[in-house]
């Protein structure tokens, strides 16, 4: 693993591309710290994906199949015929440059090929050569070039430096979406076995065990039961998690990251506490060990693999006879649920239109997918005064909110989380307008790039987000970054430690659970993390 440069070293970024060298004349230079490890053969084999073998992107020989160019050729043709987005986005870019300085990877790296327009041109240039008359005839003059092995490597290097955050597509006058081009490009690389380990392994895990982390059913149960002990220590209340129960009205699915690592675990405890709180009010909910993953790393592989993994959600709700599905806090999970799931694996006719059993509110905007976001579920509870909340328990926190890319630009989920946070926290501060809501900056580690070996890339890509956090930290004393995404919760602690060490990371339902006042609970002296609540500092050792 490469050493990550120090922040002051890494911040010296020159955004000026070379003056006299055209981009086609600059060969790709694959750097450790920026690229991820190659996919392992066992993971590809488990998914019956092509060309399983050990390979290392830092070595010259990528062990490509003999006919790799043919495969890419056919793959491109096939996708141009299947996706209007792909064909259109290959044809209509005018290179106005509006997207260029909107990409967090360009801002944080200065690598000109990380400008979305440039990243797309890497593929477009080959498209022109293979599929347009001008490109065939005029070659370089028309911005066309052959697909050589070096070009392929360049594709791979930059396709796996895009987090599919769609910020560029917001600014594009034609709505050209680099995420869509990256998705196509990654489908192509997967046809010849060029995935990264951190995507291929979670995919295989998820396929087999139901979740990315490969947690087997008994271990999954153990982990949640461990949380109940923690919760009992803090609240004095013992809760019973509920698994794979047939006939439960609601099936709950959340990213497995929440079960596995801090601070996601506190968010997971938050869900459990909320469900327990609502039990006596009529909530009938179960967790599945089979569909124990909300996220979908298949989405970072290909549409087909995304569909194969996503199928579990509806299948499990059908097997259990649930009426509808409640989904946890996650980013790309919600883009898949919002924009793909129903098309992939619907119609979900075995389910009913979701209605909150507590408030009677009909979630009309989920009448087809039958899946409700837990933050909107909770927002509705709060709006209807169903939760007794003591926001002062979060008074030690000055909170800002990071809009995760996918719920932001793939759904439009802005007000619900803000409403909940403001009801459970007294100190809330927004980051600058150019860095939130639809203009939000990526964590820099999405779309499967949250590995360890590409830490430099992640610190670079997360820099614009961290810079905005730093701004509110310095201006308002913000010390907590809230988010509704499991990848965020997994990667922001590293990012904050690197750029703004004074700021910690939380999910929204951790904040909710801290503020939630249970009947018959013992006097709470600490929050879910075991840190003293405001005013309780002296009682900590009791």
């Amino acid at each position, binding site marked *: 693993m490469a050493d990550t440069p120090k922040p002051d070293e890494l911040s010296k970024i020159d955004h000026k*591309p070379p003056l006299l060298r*055209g981009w086609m004349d600059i060969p790709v230079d694959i750097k450790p710290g920026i690229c991820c490890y190659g996919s392992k053969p066992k993971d590809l084999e488990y998914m019956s994906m092509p060309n399983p073998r050990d390979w290392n992107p830092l070595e010259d020989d990528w062990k490509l199949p003999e006919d790799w160019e043919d495969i890419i050729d056919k793959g491109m043709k096939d996708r141009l015929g299947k996706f209007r987005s792909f064909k259109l986005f290959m044809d*209509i870019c005018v290179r106005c440059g509006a997207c260029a300085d909107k990409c967090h990877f360009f801002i944080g790296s200065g690598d000109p090929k990380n400008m979305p327009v440039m990243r797309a041109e890497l593929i477009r240039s080959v498209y022109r050569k293979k599929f347009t008359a001008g490109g065939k005839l005029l070659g370089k*003059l028309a911005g066309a070039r052959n697909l050589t092995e070096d070009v392929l490597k360049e594709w791979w290097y930059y396709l796996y430096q895009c987090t599919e955050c769609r910020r560029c597509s917001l600014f594009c006058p034609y*709505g050209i979406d680099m995420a869509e081009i990256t998705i196509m490009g990654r489908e192509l690389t997967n046809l010849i076995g060029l995935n990264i380990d951190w995507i291929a392994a979670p995919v295989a895990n998820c396929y087999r065990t139901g979740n990315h982390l490969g947690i087997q059913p008994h271990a999954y149960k153990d982990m949640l039961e461990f949380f109940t002990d923690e919760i009992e220590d803090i609240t004095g209340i013992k809760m019973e998690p509920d698994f794979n129960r047939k006939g439960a009205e609601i099936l709950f699915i959340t990213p497995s990251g929440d079960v596995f690592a801090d601070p996601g675990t506190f968010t997971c405890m938050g869900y459990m506490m909320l469900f327990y709180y609502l039990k006596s009010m009529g909530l009938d909910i179960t967790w599945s060990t*089979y569909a124990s993953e909300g996220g979908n790393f298949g989405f970072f592989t290909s549409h087909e693999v995304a569909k194969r993994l996503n199928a*579990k959600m509806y299948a499990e709700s059908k097997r259990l006879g649930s009426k509808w599905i409640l989904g946890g806090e996650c980013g790309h999970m919600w883009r898949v649920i919002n924009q793909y799931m129903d098309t992939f694996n619907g119609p979900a006719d075995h389910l009913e239109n979701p209605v909150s059993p507590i408030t009677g509110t009909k979630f009309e*905007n989920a009448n087809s997918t039958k899946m409700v976001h837990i933050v909107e579920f909770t927002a509705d509870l709060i709006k209807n005064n169903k939760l007794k909340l003591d926001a002062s328990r979060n008074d030690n926190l000055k909170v800002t909110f990071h809009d995760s890319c996918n719920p932001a630009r793939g759904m439009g989920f802005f007000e619900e989380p803000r409403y909940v946070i403001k009801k459970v926290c007294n100190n809330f501060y927004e980051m600058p307008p150019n860095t939130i809501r639809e203009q939000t900056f990526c964590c820099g580690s999405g779309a499967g790039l949250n590995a360890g070996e590409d830490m430099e890339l992640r610190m670079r890509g997360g820099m614009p987000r961290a810079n905005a956090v730093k701004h509110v930290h310095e201006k308002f004393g913000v010390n907590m970054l809230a988010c509704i995404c499991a990848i965020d919760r997994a990667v922001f602690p590293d990012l904050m430690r690197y750029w703004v060490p004074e700021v910690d990371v939380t999910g929204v339902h951790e904040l909710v659970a801290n503020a939630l006042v249970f009947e018959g609970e013992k006097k709470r002296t600490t929050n879910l993390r075991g840190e003293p609540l405001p005013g309780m500092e002296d009682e900590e050792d009791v």
Partner: protein
Amino acid sequence: MNFILSVIISLIAVVVVILIPWVGVGAFDLRVLFGIVIPYAAISIFIVGIVVKVLDWGRSPVPFRIPTTAGQEWSFPWIKTNPVDNPKGKGGVIIRMLFEVLLFRSLFRNTRLEYTFKDGAAKIDHEWEKWLWLAALLFHWSFLVIFLRHFRFFVQQIPGFVHLLESLDGFLQLGVLPVTGFGVPDVYLTDLLLLIALAYLFIRRLYIPHMRFISLPADYFPLLLIFSLGISGVLMRYFIRVDITVVKEFAVGFFKFSPKAPEGIGVIFYIHLFILCVLIAYFPFSKLMHFAGVFLSPTRNLSNNNRFVRHVNPWDYPVKTHTYEEYEDEFREKMVEAGLPVDKQIETT
């Protein structure tokens, strides 16, 4: 290829485009070729090319509904939604598209990165930058107005909207420029704006480092071509006057399919016409197709209604999944041991 080469190649191409009719008509008097054959050919390529291209795009389906949501989605009645930037239905999409096509809504969001490194720390700012938006808007609208003004030549009876446009376009200029009153007709605002906007769009490609890096000959060439189209038009209107009645006779005949190559008219007219022919013949094969493509863009022209209206993928196919049965078969013993419910009990033999 670097930017110098790209610009030189584009310049040469445009000079050649200008020289061809100059020599062809000026020296060889090929009026039929340049006045009739090439214009008909060009307009045919233009129309057929666009139709073929759009049909080709249309042939590829939209398997997933993937709008880029730029505002609050439709939610509870007590949450204010943004029906334009995040439309839930057709009405919202139409308004969103109108904003996009007529006002360049997305480009209006543009900002400029201001990156400073001081005292060991980086500061990232996103500064006001509406110049690109403004220049693009002025360029496109001016081009449209100029095109519409040309209808005074295309049809016998000058349509009312042309008079209106001309008076608006010219009225604003009355007495503003020193050139008026020197035997030069009133200057049209759009003539000036078009050239200024084009010049800006060209210069920014050379001046802004990352623009220099991403620009191709295919970016410089159309700008230069349209610029020379504008210049030749301006020359004809203000300086090297040509006989308008001849031009009109030609244009009206041309569109009635009884063309007569204009006679006794300056070669500048043929240059103007030829540049236009090259532009429209080049059009369907170039990035200029963005004018049609924007209407088909799936991130803009679809409603964000997936959660309540199912979208069907026409080429959907069944995929291999890992079923619950397979899962339980693998983990049954562990599940039973952990007290998890199972569908099939362990067989005790």
